[in-house]
Structure formats: structure tokens, C-alpha cells
């Protein structure tokens, strides 16, 4: 069977893949093929009917669907090739991709590969919430899909576990659809979603949020009939005696997103346990030359605007690498997580070059009146003041490559 040859193969047609493809094209890459497993481009944005997108990229307030549509129309206008309903089965170190669709098996040979495969939701099983296994338990994204793509309500008396954004967004949608949202339970002492969503999704509708609280038991033989809420201590462990029952027919889980990196794992690409994504250098290139990663599969973002900004960087670097004919190895210094910081991306910075690098990271906890400090060796090379940083909101800091002389450390200090 004749392989398809292309300059850049993009795996994943969500906004990360689309923005990366468009940026690569704008920087001179000629042949680009996007491979997408669902029937449409846009990824999960197709089911994000709420607004708040595009504030940074377009200076407009768009819904997720409108934001995706902007990229989809540009992909079409730029004549970027797209194969939908096509699932990639494997990616090899030599960039050979095996995929499949109704037409059969496909082999693609590409000069460069961009992995933009997004993320999945943490399910009940991964949390080991004890109890029965009735129907009525959904992750928030699945409930969102039922509501916004299929047109169905998953339940009428709903408890939400986790204050992640998707759960908060769905709380509002449930209420507007006529269901009751009884409570949001969050194991941390603070919200893990955007603060604005606490206001416009919970406070606006008088939905109580209980911090330091989790679900310790699920009841119901066939359909969920109730959950047990329990207070948790500073280590997230249940406080005995603080249990209370809440009758409900639906439990919606919004307890974290996990980068979806089966292809990278099978290709032997080293992954970073702090982020779940690949270890990448400041070109967003993985340890395998010519294979890049961006978006939620690299590290889970909060805002699509930052996903596309990161993907645009990837596209620019991919174009440079293809231009060089191959991605030459370079001397790099490592970037590590210092105090109160978790999951800095990228993990390597090239020395001896110019320009700036955007470091993205999450604080390990909620800290007020602090600064992010970036050290090269013992020298402070960048800093940024904050009123508050919280794990639910990814942070960025830009550093000057010329100032990087030794191992880099990012930390949050009082």
C-alpha cells in the first residue's frame, strides 16, 4: 500500500492541532495533513457552548464553538489537508504513522509529526470511590457531550464532585435546563477551576460549594440514589464522623484531566510524571527528533487561548526544523520545578541562542502576595509579582534565552 507523504503530520484536529498546522503553514511548511478521529475538527470545543474564549487571541468574547470555527475556516482557506474519522494506531520514531478509517489502513510518512491528542477525564474508577456501580455517574465532559451534542439531560438531582471548570460550567447548564444542582464538593480548600466560574456558575444560582469535602460512598442498586459527603483533612483524608447523606440521582465528576498519550508512550517518548505530557525542549520537541507536542496532551491547560498560543510556537519551531532538513540536537540546560511549582514546560532550554522562551507552569498550592522567580544557577533571571496564584490557573513567565547560563529553576516565593 502506498504511503501518504507529507511534510508535517498533525495528530489531533482540535484547536491545538489546527493552530499548530496554521502556524507551520504561515512559517513556510507546504504539505500538512491533519488526522482527526471524530467526524469533525474542533475537538472538545465542539461541545463548549459557553463564552470566555478568544479574549486573548482575538480580543473578542466567543463561545468555544465560535472559537473552533475560526480555526476550522482558516484551515479550509489555507487548503490544509484533513482526514476525519481517522484513528492513528501508531507513530514510530522514524515518523511512520499507521492510521485507519472506513477506507482501510493508511500509512503516512512525514518529515515532522505534531502530537496534539488532547486529554481524557479522570473516571470514578481511578478515584476508587467506594460503593455500588449504578447508572447516573458521569464525568463532566461526558455530561456536556450528552447535553450539547446529543441533546439529553443526564439527571435531575445532581451532585458535582470537584470544582474543575467543566463541572462548574455544567452546573450552570444543568440549572438552565431545569435540573437541580444540590452541591459541589471540592477536596481542596480552594477551587481548582477559574474564579470567574465560581461566580457565574455557582454563586449566580445559589449552588453551594463545600471545600475540604469529598464523596465517600455511592448508593443505589440500578440508578444512583444518593452519595455520602465527608469532610477531609489537610491531607485529603476523610474525617470520621463528618459524613452526611445527600439524596440525588446523578453524580458528575470533575476531578481532573489526564493527557492522552498512548501514542507517545508506545513510541517510546519519555513522559514527564509532573505533567503527564512528553518531556520537551524549548522548541516543544520531544526526545524523538522531529516529533513535537503541544496543547492539552503536553500539559493540561485552562484556556484554549493559551493552547493555541503554545501551538503557534510549536508550528514556528516545526517550520524551522523542517527547513533545516532535520532537527539538529542542541546543547540544552534542564528546567526544574522549584519550591511551590509543579510541571514547568519546557524541560530543556537551548543555550547559546537568542530570543525569549515562555515557561508555563502551575503553582503547587494557593499562594497570595508572592512572586514567581526564575533562577539560572543562583542568578535571578526573571520575576513576576502576583496578588494570588492558584493551581487552577496556569501561569506563564517569559525569560530571555541569553541570560540562561546554567540549570534553570522556577519557583514561587513569598
Amino acid at each position, binding site marked *: 500500500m502506498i504511503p501518504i507523504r507529507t511534510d508535517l503530520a498533525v495528530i489531533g484536529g482540535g484547536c491545538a492541532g489546527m493552530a499548530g498546522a496554521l502556524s507551520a503553514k504561515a512559517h513556510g511548511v507546504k504539505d500538512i495533513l491533519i488526522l482527526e478521529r471524530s467526524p469533525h475538527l474542533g475537538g472538545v470545543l465542539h461541545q463548549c457552548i459557553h463564552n470566555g474564549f478568544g479574549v486573548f487571541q482575538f480580543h473578542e468574547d466567543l463561545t468555544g464553538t465560535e472559537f473552533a470555527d475560526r480555526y476550522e475556516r482558516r484551515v479550509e482557506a489555507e487548503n490544509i489537508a484533513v482526514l476525519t474519522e481517522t484513528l492513528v494506531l501508531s507513530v514510530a520514531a522514524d515518523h511512520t504513522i499507521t492510521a485507519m478509517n472506513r477506507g482501510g489502513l493508511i500509512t503516512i510518512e512525514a518529515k515532522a509529526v505534531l502530537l496534539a491528542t488532547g486529554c481524557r477525564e479522570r473516571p470514578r474508577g481511578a478515584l476508587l470511590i467506594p460503593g455500588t456501580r449504578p447508572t447516573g455517574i458521569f464525568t463532566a465532559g461526558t455530561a456536556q457531550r450528552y447535553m450539547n451534542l446529543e441533546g439529553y439531560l443526564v439527571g435531575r438531582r445532581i451532585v458535582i464532585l470537584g470544582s474543575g471548570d467543566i463541572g462548574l460550567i455544567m452546573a450552570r447548564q444543568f440549572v438552565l435546563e431545569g435540573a437541580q444542582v444540590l452541591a459541589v464538593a471540592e477536596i481542596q480548600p480552594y477551587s481548582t477551576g477559574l474564579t470567574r466560574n465560581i461566580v457565574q456558575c455557582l454563586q449566580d444560582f445559589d449552588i453551594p460549594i463545600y471545600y475540604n469535602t469529598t464523596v465517600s*460512598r455511592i448508593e443505589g442498586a440500578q440508578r444512583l440514589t444518593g452519595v455520602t459527603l465527608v469532610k477531609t483533612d489537610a491531607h485529603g483524608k476523610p474525617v470520621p464522623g463528618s459524613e452526611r447523606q445527600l439524596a440525588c440521582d446523578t453524580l458528575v465528576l470533575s476531578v481532573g484531566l489526564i493527557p492522552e498519550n498512548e501514542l507517545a508512550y508506545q513510541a517510546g517518548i519519555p513522559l514527564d510524571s509532573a505533567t503527564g505530557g512528553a518531556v520537551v525542549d524549548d522548541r516543544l520537541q520531544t526526545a524523538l527528533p522531529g516529533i513535537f507536542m503541544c496543547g492539552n496532551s503536553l500539559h493540561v491547560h485552562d484556556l484554549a487561548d493559551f493552547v493555541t498560543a503554545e501551538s503557534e510556537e510549536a508550528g514556528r519551531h516545526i517550520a524551522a526544523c523542517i527547513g533545516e532538513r532535520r532537527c539538529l540536537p542542541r546543547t540544552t540546560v534542564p528546567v526544574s520545578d522549584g519550591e511551590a511549582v509543579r510541571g514547568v514546560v519546557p524541560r530543556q532550554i537551548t543555550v547559546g541562542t537568542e530570543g525569549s522562551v515562555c515557561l508555563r507552569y502551575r503553582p503547587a498550592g494557593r499562594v497570595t502576595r508572592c512572586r514567581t522567580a526564575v533562577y539560572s544557577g543562583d542568578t535571578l533571571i526573571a520575576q513576576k509579582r502576583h496578588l494570588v496564584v492558584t493551581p487552577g490557573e496556569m501561569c506563564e513567565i517569559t525569560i530571555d534565552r541569553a541570560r540562561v547560563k546554567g540549570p534553570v529553576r522556577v519557583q514561587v516565593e513569598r
Partner: protein
Amino acid sequence: MEFDVIIIGSGISGACAAREISRYRLRALVVEKGYDLCAGATRGNSATVHSGHDAEYGSLKALYNVRGNAMYDALCADLDVPFTRSGTVIFATNEAEMAEVRRLKENADRNGVPGCEVLTRDALNALEDGWGGDVVGALYAPTGGVVCPYTLAFALCENAAENGVAFRTDTEVRGIRRTDGGYRLTTSRGELTAACVFNCAGTHADEMNNFVSGHTLRIIPRKGEHILLDCKLAPYVQRVWSQTPSALPGGGHTKGMGVIPSVDRTVILGCDAHEVHDKDDTSTTAAGTGEILRYFERNWRHLPISRAIPEFPRSMVIGAFGGLRPHSDTDDFVLGQPADAPGFYNMAGIESPGLTAAPAIAEALVAQAAQSRGWVKNPGFNPLRRRPKPFREMTADERREAIARDPDYGRFVCRCEQVTLAEIKQAIRSPLGARTVNGVKMRTRAGMGRCQGGFCGPDVVRILSEELGIPMTEVTRCGGDSRILAGETCVEEEP
């Protein structure tokens, strides 16, 4: 009598019995109280085919364990069910446990278990590299294996159905009386009569027996919880591993806390054992799953997998489930006709090693019944059952050919477990096919992977809705009240 034989229950016992009975020309019916086949104990266990080294010598458990174990290769080949004779390692971490290993070896020999060996640590590492920690030696039982219990039960039922046995699900037996010529069963769907009855009712087998016999039975449900690990760990686990039983939490009630490389590549950890009161309570508990986690956090270092993965990988946990063992208070299987109930064949108390023993028990009991009742062989009996090869097991050429023949093989539904639309439709359309989300899940594995149905769930519901011709709001997880969806959106409320 309406039927020659009625079999109560479609778990591994009932399924084995049904297939044996289908060798004879009989009017036979299986009644199952669940909405789908195999709704009880067979669904939630450790998926292990035991060697028989630890069964009590002289018991029915020992006899049928060893005999059943030997039948598995041929049985699974006939039914096209994956079975791996992986071998079992029972490891010891000190001299007391090593003494137990030696006792188990003596017991194995007495039970007629072939091939068991006592290994020193070095010999164990020659067999399988990487054993460390405090391990001093082990019992190696090469006849131990793994099978998917409900896949086997479904296959047995399909073969029985093809050979003429009828099946009725959603039919609960609520009473049984002796009548002239046999038995009258009162069920949730009306009265049935049969010349003889096979009691394969799992945790409810005592109730069935006690309807007709003064020799009462008592089944005490013993719950065992299990934890599932991502199939990424499958390459590191080649054999079933377990520490000597007495070393384990829960002591004597359980066979052990094992690491089981299931045939589906998910790694199963478990299980503990606690008596429960409710015969249908398969819920997991914080204490139960906690016990499993704590055990493995402490003991991971002994296992070969710890060379590659030094710490117990909590992030690899994808789920947990509970299963009920139907433990008879006689501590053994209860088999055959009670003296006061001729024609009523008990297959009761089928706790571990029930999965292993069931084919042998069914063979013996059905042969006995056939002889005493003069049953005539079914000349058309076909022992072979073929399943369509799952996409995930196909080679590239087989995949190309499958997609060319049926483009639905080119459309993924569950990408975590690589299940295509073609297979899901087959699972629904075949005789004794799936009618629920769980039915699709158990026949195809869609929804059993790392995302636990988060992505494919809505697609499976839609496919069931289209195939069964019912609205999506009527699709259930497992029948009854377990509807997935509460209603349509954008519907005007009643004033």
C-alpha cells in the same frame, strides 16, 4: 412437564451445565434472574484457573479443581475463548511461609496436581527474573491459568443455545415445589414445569435447595474486592503471583492477594474476603480497596515488576469491583441430588475454585443425570463455537481484509480497548446478544479501558438505541431502572 430440564442461573455453573445438557436431545431451558446472562458471582472474580494445590485433600473442591483445570485447554479451544496457562507462583518471604510452601506442595501431590515444584529464590529467578525483596522461595504450579469468566460463560451459553437450549433472562425463580413427574417453578414471569432441575443459582442456591429439600443448605456470601490496573502493566506480569495464604490479610478465608495478568491485559489485584449479609451486595468499600492498596504498597518490592516500576503505581489504577463468593457453611461444594429431592441436582456452594471446577462438575452431574434418566444423545451436537476475531487481535492484513469486507470495522467506537462499530453491532445482533450498555461492555470490552467509557459511552448508547429501535432515553446500563439518561433537553415543561 413442559421441560425435561430447567437450569437455574447462567453463571459459570449454569453455563457449563447448559452446554453439557445440550449434548442430549432434551427440551432444556436456562432461567436467569438478571436482565442479561451471567449476572452474578461469575461476573466479579479473580479470573483465575487454579491448579488445585491448596484445595483440601479429599474434598469435592480438590477433586473437581484438578479435573476441571485439565479440561480448560480443550474446552477453550472448542469455544474459541482466550485462555492462558500462565502458571502460578506462590512466594514466601520468610521461613514460616516457606514451610507453608512445602506443605502446599505435599497437598498438591496428594491432590494429583501435576508439575508443582518447590523453588529456592535462585531457582525462582531462573524461571522468572526479578524476584527480590525478602523472597526466599516459592511454590510453582505450572497448571495455573487465566481466563475471562464471563466471556467463557457467554461462549458456553451461545454454544448451548446453538445446540437447542432455550434461555430466558429477567426471570427470577421465587418458589419450587415437587409435583408428579418433577418440579413446578414459580417465577417472576409465570409458572414452569420440568422433570429435573439443575440448581446453579450462585449466592441464592441455598434458597433454591431449601424450597424442595429438608436437607437445608446455607450460603454465606463472601465479598471479595479487586482493583484493576491499566493494561500498560501487562508486559511486566507473565504469571499469576500470590504470597502464601496465611501471610495475607483476611487469613484463611481467601486464596490470596494476587496479581493476575488477565487475558484482556488489564492487571487484576485482589482479593480480600469479608462476609456480607446482602446476597446481591457487590459494592466496593474504602476498607476493602484500602486493604488491597496497603498490601501492595508494602509488598510490591518482592515482585519482579518492581525492577521496572519501583513503587506501587497508584496512578495506574483504573477501577475496582466487588464479587460475591457463594460460600456454603459446609466449606465444600454441595453437589448432586439431595436424598429427598430426586431429579434436583445441586451445583451449590460454588466459591473458589468454582470457575476452574465448573466444567468438571457439570460433566459429572449431567452424565449422572443422563444415565439415570435414560437421556438420548443429540446427534447434531456441535461442540465448536466460533467468535469473530476482535479487531484488536487482528494482524494488519486481517484488518485490511475486515475493513474491505465491512467498513464498520474501520470505525472506532472505544479507542482505549480498540473496539470497532462492527463488533458492537455483532454483539447486539447475535443470539443472546447485548441489549444494554453493560451487555455491550462485557461482550466487546467497550468502556473497560483507561477512560472507563467517558468517550465511547454516548456512542454505545446511540448504537443500542438505533439497533434496538428504542429512544436513547430508554437505553439502560443493565435493565430495570438503570436508564442512562433522564430526558431530552429543550423540551417545553408541562404547564
